[in-house]
């Protein structure tokens, strides 16, 4: 609508919803303004029109408009919720991109090790999943052409997925006040055809994929001392971990996703794997967000390997 591109599947759905809301609002406005104008003209004080009998009992009217309003509102609620729930259900074959926000820039890290700032290159018609965190205050990743935004919080991962379906360059805004440079924290999302994306990846080739870089860090930070290989004596093996359920010492179970792995590195005492002693030191303040996401990418890559 209004010339704003609908560059993702979600955008079309959101526009339909907004269009529906505009229609409901227009009807309600027409009703209220129409009746108000009609009454104030017809029943102005010096109008001779016969008022007849004035309704004494109001209960029927009250029930009618209360029920009517409730039903329409309930419909709108369901409509909005159905689309919203999809935003939390990414398909399994997403292309993962890591975003680290800081005052006042967007740092983007692709799985192949390509890095960029304030620009995000993605292929068209492929579901993209962003894993986002902030180094300082709350930011917000907002792409109007996708009708999507999500706060980017310090201290945890937030994910956001979308499937761009129109090639082009679109605004990326930070929409959570983050300081003097807030309005300058803008960039663009470039949606490219598959061949163009492939050649962009090749031209920006890095010295190794994120997972490979993560593997080096895994050794450098000493993680491999306990978690290396298939050994499970001092610490659980990380092979095959990613995406699988993890039984915890308090009896509950969590799925090992990006957020869990990040939390386990920074706050290992919070979620102890069943039958292990809480002996891992915290790496809070030791490993920065850039290195963290490489470690997460590496541990994710171990998930593909078979358990012994």
């Amino acid at each position, binding site marked *: 609508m*209004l010339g*704003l591109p609908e560059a993702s599947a979600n955008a079309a759905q*959101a526009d339909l919803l*907004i269009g529906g*809301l505009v229609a409901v*609002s227009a009807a*309600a*406005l027409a009703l*209220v303004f129409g*009746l*108000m104008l009609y*009454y*104030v003209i017809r*029943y*102005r*004080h010096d109008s*001779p029109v016969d*008022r007849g009998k*004035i*309704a004494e009992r*109001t209960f029927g*009217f*009250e029930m009618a*408009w*209360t029920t009517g*309003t409730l039903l329409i*509102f309930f419909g*709108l*609620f369901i*409509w*909005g919720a159905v*689309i*919203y*729930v999809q935003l939390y259900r990414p398909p399994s074959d997403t292309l993962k991109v890591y975003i680290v926000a800081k005052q006042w820039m967007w740092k983007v890290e692709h799985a192949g090790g390509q890095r960029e700032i304030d620009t995000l290159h993605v292929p068209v018609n492929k579901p993209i999943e962003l894993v986002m965190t902030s180094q*300082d*205050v*709350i930011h*917000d990743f907002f792409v*109007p*052409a996708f*009708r*999507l*935004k*999500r*706060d980017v*919080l*310090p*201290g*945890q991962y*937030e994910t956001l997925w979308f499937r761009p379906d129109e090639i082009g360059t679109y*605004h990326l*805004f930070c*929409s*959570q*006040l*983050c*300081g003097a*440079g*807030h*309005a300058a924290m803008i960039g663009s999302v470039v949606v490219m055809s598959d061949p163009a994306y492939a050649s962009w990846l090749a031209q920006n080739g890095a010295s190794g994929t994120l997972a490979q870089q993560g593997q080096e860090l895994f050794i450098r930070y000493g993680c491999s001392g306990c978690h290396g290989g298939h050994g499970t004596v001092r610490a659980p093996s990380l092979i095959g971990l990613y995406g699988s359920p993890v039984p915890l010492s308090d009896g509950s179970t969590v799925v090992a996703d990006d957020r869990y792995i990040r939390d386990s590195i920074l706050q290992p005492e919070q979620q102890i794997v069943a039958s292990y002693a809480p002996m891992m030191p915290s790496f809070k303040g030791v490993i920065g967000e850039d290195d963290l996401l490489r470690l997460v990418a590496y541990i994710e890559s171990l998930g593909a390997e078979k358990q012994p």
Partner: protein
Amino acid sequence: MSQTATVNERAAPAHERPSYLFDGVTLKSWLLTTDHKRIAVLYMISITIFFFIGGSAAALIRYNLIVPEGMIPSAETYNRLFTMHGVIMVWFFLVPSIPVTIGNFVLPLMIGARDLAFPKINLLSWYLFILGGAVALYALFVGGADTGWTFYAPYSTNYAQGNVVLLVTGIFISGFSSIATGLNFIVSIHRLRAPGMTWYRMPIFLWSLYSTSVIYVLATPVLAITLLLVAFERVFHVGVFDPRIGGDPILFQHMFWFYSHPAVYIMILPGLGVVSEVIPVFARKELFGYKFIAWSSVAIAVIGFFVWGHHMFVSGQSLYASIVFSLLSYFVAVPSAIKVFNWLGTLHKGYIRFDAPMLYALGFIGLFVMGGLTGLFLAALAADVDLHDTYFVIAHFHYIMVGGMVSAYFAALHFWWPKMSGRMYPEMIARAAALLMFVGFNLTFFPQFILGYLGMPRRYHSYPPEFQVLNVLSSAGASILAAAYLMPLVYLVWSLLYGERAPANPWNAKGLEWETPSPPFTANFAITPVVTDGRYNYPKPETSEAHG
């Protein structure tokens, strides 16, 4: 509503008593007064000053946004300006506004009482307000803060420049003033009603003030705690909200909106009450659905406490919480819709006059409905994901707060001005101002809905050039709006000196406050009134053409 003589032996006859305005003429007699009417005047002067300070900041904001790169060179200055605008308008104008001025003045008159239950606490509440306001103004003028009025952590606690601690201290102090007023109103309505003034005979305005007071008392302490924790983390670096030191930033948002969402009902409920009061008078007809309007205020106050999470649909709160908050947000809109339908029912078959208070009230209905309907967009989860934190939100809440609440404030001011001042204002100029406000308001804020849909985020000092046309339109509207707001300041002050003397009941309205002289004398009533009838039983005008 009739009165029967009740004993009040020592009272002099009404016509021999000085009006409250001249019952003592020294500055001391004003600054140490415990008369609710004088305190209302003190409050009115104070919030008018705050309104024009906050309005000046708004004017500078609109000036900045005329060009894409920003007319004000520094983004930091701009951030301080909108923080100043938000803080002053929310806490030092909108939250007190109608209750402390109009409410303070007419509540005891409406229930047939001499004063509020705790006159000294009433005065204390004004001093707390002034103290809090002075601290906040000092903080804003010696450097300000750039956090926005929402003080989101961890930005406010560990990153923001400026006087955040001093500013939240000012708001913290003024919170006690709200609590004192709320407490005073609740007790007065329970304990001081004249004989015969049953709950269902009370003016509908009092139902809305009562509901507002409940929110004042229950929600303000949560704000106080939240602001205290912000100051605590900022000064002592105790980890409450900042994850780097072990805090949780979402916790701040839960706590802040637990106050600040009910607070928007603090701001709008009194306005809804005023409009429910004005419409029957100028339609010469009983209020349609009195009990539904009365209980819908209570329903808004209660449900309003359970919708705060709709400010957090994109914040990272749980999916299920968001779904529940969305549903409850739709529920809270139902009582507002009920009120609108009942106002229309009141207009039906009335004898409608278009005096200035009525024009403001009719303008209120239009703008409030616009604001309410656009609220439905933001309550719809998937639409909010797009529109959240854009100019759509700015437009939505200004339609409610400025289009709605400020229109209602002017309706109340014009309606009760003759009672408060004893003078009439120039009617035609007042009507012109009402129309100009309506036009200026729509021109200012309607373009912002479109800007928001197109994706312009709020709190942007500069913006991509394609948003310029709509921003210029909005700024042009703001200049009309500014002129419209200056008009009442001029003609109301003029009326104090040169206005025609007001009769006791210029609108031929029902209600105890209209049975006192204009302006009332200090004790309000020579004899305690006894109420035998509901407020809104307007007989049909006995004009021959009415049945022609």
